[in-house]
């Protein structure tokens, strides 16, 4: 592909300058507003920084990290977060792609359908969480009466440690997939229609077209979508905060929720920063791994 050809030539000075100038504004802003703050967090994690007592801050070495190794709830939250990521990523991605393919057509009224599919995404998560708490209510929630009418249930949903996280997965995928739908949709636009036409003439079925034209055509965008869902899934906080408070029995406690609670509600910024550091390193490793894997696949395909 193009990238390979480019690699063979040497970048001209003019091109180098242009490239650097193009990335410079973004780099400077990211450096100031994300990287420096992250370095500060890194610094806090070796102190006993209490948000209400900034003057009493002292260097405590690895104390926070030692404490983390004994923090059973933190360990649980890591497990929960991974569980959430593993469940939500394929679900949300599949739903996003499915919706995108459903609405990638020019029939009458498609605008209304697009808007309908996107509706949960424009509402704030807070509102969506409140509504779903009503829906999930074991006594009179819509879901139990719906399932009850076909003879299933009743379930306790958010009130059962075994099902609570799953309920949040469903809600999150449902709420979030509108974004993925939009991105997939813009990716679908880039697949030339004549490819489908040619395939259809060759007698390829819909499924074969999907497998051999749609999927490869979406490759670049899919890498992005997978990564974006993974990243946002790792940062799960609002839904458990609004709906379960991390319970029952810590079954929906997530890492970022703990970081928030420790750093902002319990004022233990130093300890919360240590959690943030561990979290970031963990996700970074996974991202690198994922990147290695996907680029390995890329190589193979070339």
């Amino acid at each position, binding site marked *: 592909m193009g990238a390979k050809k480019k690699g063979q030539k040497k970048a001209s000075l003019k091109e180098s300058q242009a490239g650097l100038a*193009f990335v410079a*504004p973004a780099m400077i802003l990211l450096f*100031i507003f994300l990287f420096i703050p992250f370095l500060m967090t890194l610094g806090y994690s070796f102190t006993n920084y209490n948000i209400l007592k900034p003057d009493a801050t002292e260097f405590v070495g690895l104390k926070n990290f030692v404490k983390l190794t004994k923090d059973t709830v933190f360990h649980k939250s890591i497990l929960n977060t991974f569980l959430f990521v593993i469940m939500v990523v394929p679900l949300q991605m599949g739903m996003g792609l499915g919706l995108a393919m459903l609405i990638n057509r*020019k029939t009458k009224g498609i605008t209304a359908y697009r808007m309908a599919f996107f509706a949960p995404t424009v509402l704030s998560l807070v509102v969506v969480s409140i509504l779903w708490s*009503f829906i999930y209510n074991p006594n009179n929630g*819509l879901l139990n009466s719906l399932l009850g009418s076909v003879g299933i249930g009743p379930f306790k949903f958010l009130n059962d440690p075994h099902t609570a996280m799953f309920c949040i997965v469903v809600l999150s995928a449902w709420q979030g997939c509108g974004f993925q739908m939009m991105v997939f949709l813009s990716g679908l636009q880039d697949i030339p229609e004549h490819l489908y036409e040619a395939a259809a003439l060759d007698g390829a079925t819909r499924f074969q077209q999907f497998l051999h034209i749609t999927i490869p055509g979406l490759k670049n965008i899919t890498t992005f979508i997978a990564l974006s869902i993974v*990243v946002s899934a790792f940062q799960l906080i609002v839904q458990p905060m609004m709906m379960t408070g991390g319970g029952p029995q810590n079954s929906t406690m997530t890492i*970022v929720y703990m*970081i928030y609670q420790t750093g902002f509600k319990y004022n233990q910024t130093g300890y919360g920063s240590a959690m943030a550091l561990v979290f970031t390193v963990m996700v970074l490793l996974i991202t690198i791994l994922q990147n290695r894997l996907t680029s390995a696949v890329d190589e193979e395909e070339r």
Partner: protein
Amino acid sequence: MVKKQTKGQKIRAYLILTVVALLFMFPLVWMIASSFKNDAQIFGDISSIRAFWPTFNKEPFFNYKSVVAKLPLLSSMLHSILYIFVTITLSLIINSMAGYALARIRFPKKKLIMTAILAVMIIPTQTVMLPQFSIIYKLHCTNSYLGLILPALANPMYIYLFRQQFLGIPESIEEAAKLDGAGQLRIFFQLFVPLAKPIYATVTILQFVLMWNDFVWPVMVISDTKKQTVQMALSSLFNIKPVNYGDVMAGLTIVTIPVLVLFLTLQKYYVAGIASTGAKD
């Protein structure tokens, strides 16, 4: 997609679309239906299908009247639209240029920069909020929209999205322009930007929704109630016990309108893509 659809297929397609649409629409419908009810009606209906059907009282818009009287919703919506518009305009330029360079221009340390972008992408906002505020404070940008705009301009996620999009555009597109001796800026703006319209539309919508619903950061930066953003204005509806859900639903319905309007305006860019590649019905 390509074959001419029979009538039966068409009906089936609409049926599927409608069922799925209902599955995704219901909170919006609930919100709007509830905005015409008082609390007794909202909670009385909650466990039945009536929850999605408005009940019109003597004065159907009473919740709207009360919420508009209570909150400076319109002015705060205007503030939000203004600073988000500035942010998105600049953010589209900054992020897409970076994404373009990372995809199509050869320059030194590119790999390192790409890795750095992937790395900062995963930093959860909650963990850097406090130091971020310290920086805004030291830059004397508190109580100014600049404090809301600056941190939101560069976004690793969008850079990455643009990069992926530009990677997929065939090399042949720029060859001719390069032979003509066109500079990178011209190639970018004349050739690549128009080809990536759907992605620009997507990022606009993504960023608008995120910033429109943002609450904690604006509260920290903006102190002056005259400058408050839409979620700041809305928040007082939730604070006072007992929460009046009729007011809440009316308020939420009002603030959802701009997002829907934006979506409707931008979604035509998705259709344009199909048309330009010569698709037919």
